[in-house]
């Protein structure tokens, strides 16, 4: 299945925010995508699947779009 999305700053040290498109096997979960992208963080990370927050064990589906980022705050 084909998964696309964006990795935001801070998750891949020294790498600016970047779009990605990956081919993953059926049954892959969010954590598998992190592995594929070389993202080490497994706890302090936010994954949005199609705009909605998802756990790292969430199964992915063909065509899903993910946003991967560190938690932030603001005012």
């Amino acid at each position, binding site marked *: 299945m084909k998964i696309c999305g964006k990795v935001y700053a801070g998750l891949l040290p020294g790498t600016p925010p970047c779009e990605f498109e990956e081919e993953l096997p059926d049954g892959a979960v969010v954590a598998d995508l992190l592995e594929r992208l070389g993202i080490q963080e497994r*706890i302090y990370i936010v994954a*949005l699947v199609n*705009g909605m927050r998802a756990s790292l064990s969430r199964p992915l589906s063909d065509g899903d779009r993910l946003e991967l980022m560190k938690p932030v*705050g*603001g005012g």
Partner: protein
Amino acid sequence: MMSDASYGDARWVGKPVTRIDAVDKATGKFKFMSDLAFPGMLWGRVLRSKYSHALIGRVDTAKAEALPGVRAVLTARDVTGLNGFGIVVPDQPVLCWNKVRYLGDAVALVAADTSEIAEEALGLIEVEYQPLPVVDDPEKAMEPDSPLVHDGGNIHLHTRVKNGDVEEGFAQADVIIERTYYTPRQMHSFMETESGVGMCDDDGSITVWCGGQHPYRDQLQVARALGVSPEKIRIIATPSGGAFGGKDEITLQIYLALLARATRRPVKMVLSREESVVAGMKRHPMKITMKTGARADGTLVAHKVRIVADTGAYASLGGPVVNLAVEHSCGVYRIPNVELEGYCVYTNNGIAGAFRGFGANQVNFAMETQMNLIANVLGIDRVEIRKKNALRGGEQAPLGHTMAPVVGTHAVLSALEKCDLWVNREKYKACSSAPWKVRGVGVAVEYHGTGLGVGLPDYGAATIELGPGGRFTVGVSCPEIGQGNTTTYAQIAAEALGVDVTDIGIVSGDTGATLDSGSCTASRSVYTGGNSILRAAERMVALLREVGAEVLGVPVEEVAVGHGSVWVRTQGTRDCGCEGRCGRERGSDPGGISCGPASGRLSFAELYERAASWGRTLRTEGSFTWPTADKGIEGAFGLPHLINSYIAHAALVEVDTLTGKAEVLKVESFPDAGKVVNPQGLEGQSEGGAVMGIGYALMEDTIIEGGQFKTTNFSTYILPTSMDSPEVVTHIVEELEPTGPYGAKGIGEAVCVPITPAVTTAIHDACGVTVERIPATGERVYRALKGL
């Protein structure tokens, strides 16, 4: 007091619905975190640092552990994950092991059978300290030879934004005003101090009840410190007896989880006010130098700003606070040439972080004072000069981005200039209460960025589930921190689902029962939660129609939803588009409109029962992501904001020339929050915000000298009381936000911002003293009056 409220045609949105928690809170039935109790519960305490800056040597807990009734004593070696927390940078130790950087630093934790035993145990823990030089001046902290608070240097963040040619702009100016302003370390002063309970299940899963502002992020921070999967941690952050930004960062959550895991018993912690003052966040004190140039007709042409913020020992949200201060340092104005920079600096002066207004309060005080000075020098009306320079929708802002199409600045200023206080200001000023007292009227205006800005997706989500009796449960993780967002959520859901507001139940702030809606900060709760609820409600209506069609045995297209039921539309008729809300009975309209109940009707309660008998849950989800500005600002993460709330304040102040004491007699407030979902809620926000801004202007300051707190309770930290609270008249200005739920947007922060310069410039109007340092205490005003 509310004037000219607009209720519109909606059934629930725009109506002063009584808060859903009002009765329980008024009768004392409501349980806050500090009221929680569980069988076998222990009491937890924190050993805080003895010094504001020191190295740690040996930590000996043997005597404390031997004390009868003590169940656990934890130190840094018991932090099994990352020994650090912090929303952006985890630079604050959970438990310090080699160094302390402020008096609130935690060195050890104790859990005991009683609070008294835990207190005694703290005194038995032996810690060897080697004191270090205290860094207490942010300007000196930036010098190369300053002692370091952190090894990486004392400047946590430096942001610089340039647009146009500021020197060329000043060359065009007929008047240039340059001043330096100083703002205090305001305290959140929430009614309920940091409190909560931790509990650990047999399988190691941990539940933490602790008032907070972003339970899903707290979950990640707790998991990171414990070194466990976030799925093992449940955070329940609602309710909270006030927060104002002071519970945005981790407070007790990690301590509660550690102690619960160590003892396998429920552990409760409640900070005393003194401990809360020392350990907790404050508003960043700032030194702000502004140089502003204008032409003779009042047109602003150049603006140069330097901000130095004291973030104390740890970063928390100091970086974003300073960035937002930079963003708001140009006020609401069109300025073609700007040079803005902000420094966020580490010291040993407590810790500073998020606080209602988030950096805007400080710079708004400075910028609005500048505008008054320019108006006075040029002899231009103070409202007129603001209107002349105020940005309009679609214009380019000083930071280079394009303003959203709807900008409320002109609307709030136009409303203000027609108000009683402004129109009759000379009459008000002429009738002081004593010959030695003088009166003045001040005005100020602000736009306040809402949401997190442009840097990352700002997301939210909501769930709706149909339950017994046809009641809906709406889930949003943004906690209720006292501002009434759960009531607003109920109104939005009731409106969208076409049911009574009493048919809506709200679950909030619970990672075990809601989807992640982000933080209850940044004036984002109503906008994010409301938009998410609308999307979930749209799906719920479709689901009810679909299930109704299945039960009633008709095509989906023939099913209508509304009035707490689904029904079959009469053949050959049409509905009026009201989804059954108008109550028009079948056959009552010669045009063939049929909206009311017909044969084949099923109440939501019956629909729930039918679905339940099939083992089916009727539940929907909705999500929402904020729109963002068309461009980011290089080097300023999270800037700019696209959707703003707008507000103007007018204040009448009387100054006692014998003592210098200023008293605020009347405030008129003009908030533009888009569509006001609950006028009663807005009125509460407006009045509370005004009083908070008055306290900031005239009396509040957490004084720290040499790293030592001098104001550790309300006996020395002076807050406004009801005796200091003036009449506040709130005038709703509704410039509907096209992307907001029913046109709504946030207002929780802006209500406390321009009131401060409205008050301080009223002092100037009264007695000629330009307030450059707040709080404008009686002593300061008196000394300025006497030229001392």
